[in-house]
């Protein structure tokens, strides 16, 4: 049963455009994450939030900015997309201290 919801499922855009992805979880978790899964299926953490506070901020380009309005929502904005941003962006949630991650179905971004 899906409990981590991501929108949109797919997004195609041109280089230089701005995009935003949304994520909501209904599990009552206090920690949320963004992961990037590239074409080789490498799964890399980008950010994690605990109770709306940024906890983990990996080395990602500054054009990526997460935003959390409450502990159930975590959005991701990419200010000016580049071709290498083409990937699947996976949102996940967990109870604190990185217990079991529950993933959403992902947003597939294609940058032309």
């Amino acid at each position, binding site marked *: 049963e899906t409990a981590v919801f991501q929108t949109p499922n797919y997004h195609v855009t041109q280089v230089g455009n701005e995009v935003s992805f949304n994520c909501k979880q209904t599990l009552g978790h206090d920690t949320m994450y963004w992961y990037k899964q590239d074409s080789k299926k490498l799964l890399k953490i980008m950010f994690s939030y605990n109770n709306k506070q940024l906890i983990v901020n990996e080395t990602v380009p500054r054009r990526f900015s997460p935003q959390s309005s409450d502990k159930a929502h975590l959005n991701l904005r990419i200010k000016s997309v580049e071709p290498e941003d083409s990937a699947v962006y996976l949102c996940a949630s967990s109870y604190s201290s990185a217990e079991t*991650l529950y993933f959403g179905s992902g947003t597939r971004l294609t940058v032309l």
Partner: protein
Amino acid sequence: GDSVTQTEGLVTLTEGLPVMLNCTYQSTYSPFLFWYVQHLNEAPKLLLKSFTDNKRPEHQGFHATLHKSSSSFHLQKSSAQLSDSALYYCALRTGTGGYKVVFGSGTRLLVSP
């Protein structure tokens, strides 16, 4: 830094044969390991995770044993099924900074009749 290594990118097996997927790790703190499975066009989901009391976790016929002496958490199953075909990730919860799980590069398991 903390990291996970999965040496096999692809493992192909015939149905009924045993499965073993390798996972080794480097961890600054006491390790907490996971195996996640991702079927085609689905999200990754937890398969099993290590216990702190040396119990052997099992799920859907899969099991893994945390060996701190060799820094390993290999995934095993006695008999592969067609439905086991998927991408398997080994993952490590890092102690530094908390709230962070790092994933290995993944092993694709293909089980044929």
